């Protein structure tokens, strides 16, 4: 049994002469959180709609949980939960009535449905507004209601399109917690977003979209190695010692460059090594008579990867 829940091969979508999605390959594994990242208009939403069979592909194959979304859309949609970008609910109905309608569309037996609705609302911390009209809900609450719908559906795969856009930091944090909760429940989650730092914290793997193509794919660390160069960057700040000279002999260190304005005395230095050399660096600085004021591990940030990558693309063009 394969561990992939979604397999995409050579997926293509043409709008006239424009290639909105240009022959992409994509695998999503069971129980992982996968991020589809990229600027607006890069083809993320189109890809998602093709996964659900809501838009017909111009070419290529898609396999979702063993089903073809074009020919067996009902089977796919029964097992996949979808939270669209800026999800809408019927404002004149209560949260419960909205979910009840979905439950009827899913043909969930009535008694089951009531239990599943209240459990799902509990899991997104909306149990207290179950019988309030959705018109009174904030954007964050609507997104959570959308997650509740996926929970109620007991979906095997959740596809979330820009779930955090337009949310305040606190609401974003809560939503990401709920997405982690989905993963814990064994749901494979596909998130599309252009907000990188938020998404980075939850994604196991990401794919970077650019003009309909997947430019990069892998875990954040892998991408960082690919784009920012291999190596383990750390930040060193010390006084009373010439860091560049002192660190030259440390085993594993590849480059030592000043961070920020050069020649500012006790400025920070960026050290890139092929492994974690923090202990060795600290020892060397102390033994050279300097006093270490800062030693930080620089986590590769997706933001950096993203910015650097698109700079390179632009320079190449």
């Amino acid at each position: 049994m394969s561990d992939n829940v979604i397999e995409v091969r050579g997926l293509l979508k043409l709008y006239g002469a424009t290639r909105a999605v240009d022959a992409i390959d994509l695998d999503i594994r069971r129980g992982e959180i996968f991020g589809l990242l990229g600027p607006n208009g890069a083809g993320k939403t189109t890809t998602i709609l093709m996964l659900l069979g809501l838009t017909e592909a111009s070419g290529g194959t898609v396999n979702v949980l063993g089903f073809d979304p074009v020919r067996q859309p009902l089977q796919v949609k029964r097992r996949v939960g979808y939270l669209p970008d800026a999800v809408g609910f019927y404002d004149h109905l209560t949260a419960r009535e909205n979910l009840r309608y979905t439950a009827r569309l899913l043909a969930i037996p009535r008694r089951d449905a009531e239990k599943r609705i209240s459990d799902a609302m509990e899991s997104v911390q909306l149990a207290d507004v179950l019988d309030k009209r959705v018109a009174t809900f904030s954007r964050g609450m609507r997104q959570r209601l959308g997650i509740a719908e996926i929970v109620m559906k007991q979906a095997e795969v959740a596809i979330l399109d820009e779930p955090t856009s337009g949310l305040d930091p606190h609401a974003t944090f809560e939503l990401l917690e709920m997405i982690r909760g989905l993963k814990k429940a064994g749901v494979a989650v596909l998130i599309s977003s252009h907000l990188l730092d938020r998404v980075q914290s939850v994604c196991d793997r990401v794919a970077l979209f650019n003009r309909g193509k997947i430019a990069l794919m892998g875990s954040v660390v892998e991408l960082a190695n690919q784009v920012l160069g291999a190596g383990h960057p750390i930040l060193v700040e010390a006084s009373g010692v010439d860091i560049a000279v002192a660190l030259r002999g440390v085993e594993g260190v590849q480059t030592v460059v000043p961070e920020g304005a050069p020649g500012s005395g006790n400025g920070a230095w960026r050290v890139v090594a092929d492994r974690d050399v923090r202990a060795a660096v600290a020892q060397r600085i102390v033994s050279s008579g300097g006093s270490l004021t800062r030693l930080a591990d620089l986590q590769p940030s997706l933001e950096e990867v993203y910015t650097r990558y698109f700079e390179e693309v632009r320079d190449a063009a």
Partner: protein
Amino acid sequence: MLPRRGPRGSKREGSPFTGLGPVFMKEFADHLSSARMMVLMLFVIVFGAFPVAASLQQLRTVTEQDSYLFLRIFTSAPESLPISFVFALNFIIPIMAIGLGFDAVNSEFNRRTLSRVLSQPIYRDALLLGKFLGGLATLAVALAALWLIVFGAGLLLLGLPPRGVEVARGACFLLAAIAYGGVWLAASLLFSVIFRSTATSALCALGLWLFFFLLWPMIASAITIGFAPSQIHSAEQYLAVEQLGLVLARFSPGTLFSEAVVGLLNPETRTFASMLPAQMRGVIPGAPLPLDQSLILIWPQITGLIAGMIVVFAAAYVIFQREEVRA
């Protein structure tokens, strides 16, 4: 590679009617509880009550023998208010139908509920058909209520129970009215699929209705006059011209509805065109036709209305299938 479940083939699987029931029930419930429905009912009562009240006033003074007195409530146009109830229905029904359908699909789109609903296991077929049937059921309930009110008022004020055949003719008339409403409901649904803006779609539907209600009779007669020979020499020629006029006029669903209603509620009606003397042989003027003969007379009108409804709905269906769901 993921193993494929299910057979291969180019046909999509599953019934297109999966989920039709829930969509229908939701639409029906939404319509019945909506403020818009209240407004429409108020509108109907105001425009329906005056002709009915006026014709009842007049019918109470009728002394001559009339075996279809009850049906006259629907058709008589009293001097005090020169519109009959049926004529009022002729423009109330389209407005009701347009009011129920003009935002059926585009409002889902604008509220961003469309992609969420379509990501549930239903086809677009079920969504569109459910919306249409929900609207039609609402219209049917409203018209049936109106019909019962008129019958009840007739019972109270005329103090005369309707005969069985009058009730049967009245029931057929109700069905014709629902079919007529269906045409306009399908048309407004079509506009709600074509236009993203609800205001534009309402305007277009009302514009189309005004065109058929006000302009088309004039255009039809202008075309007929244009095609008619300058001098008519024979009865055949006259009939040919008249026929052309009738055919053109029947492009308007309102004409089809009026003819169906006249055939049903005025049992004396034998034809909608002129009769030649040869055809008049043996006819007792003013004698009513039996119900089955009246039904045969108006059958083309009824099928025309239903066919129109299906054609317009099919157009909406085709366009909706091709529409992009993304915002």
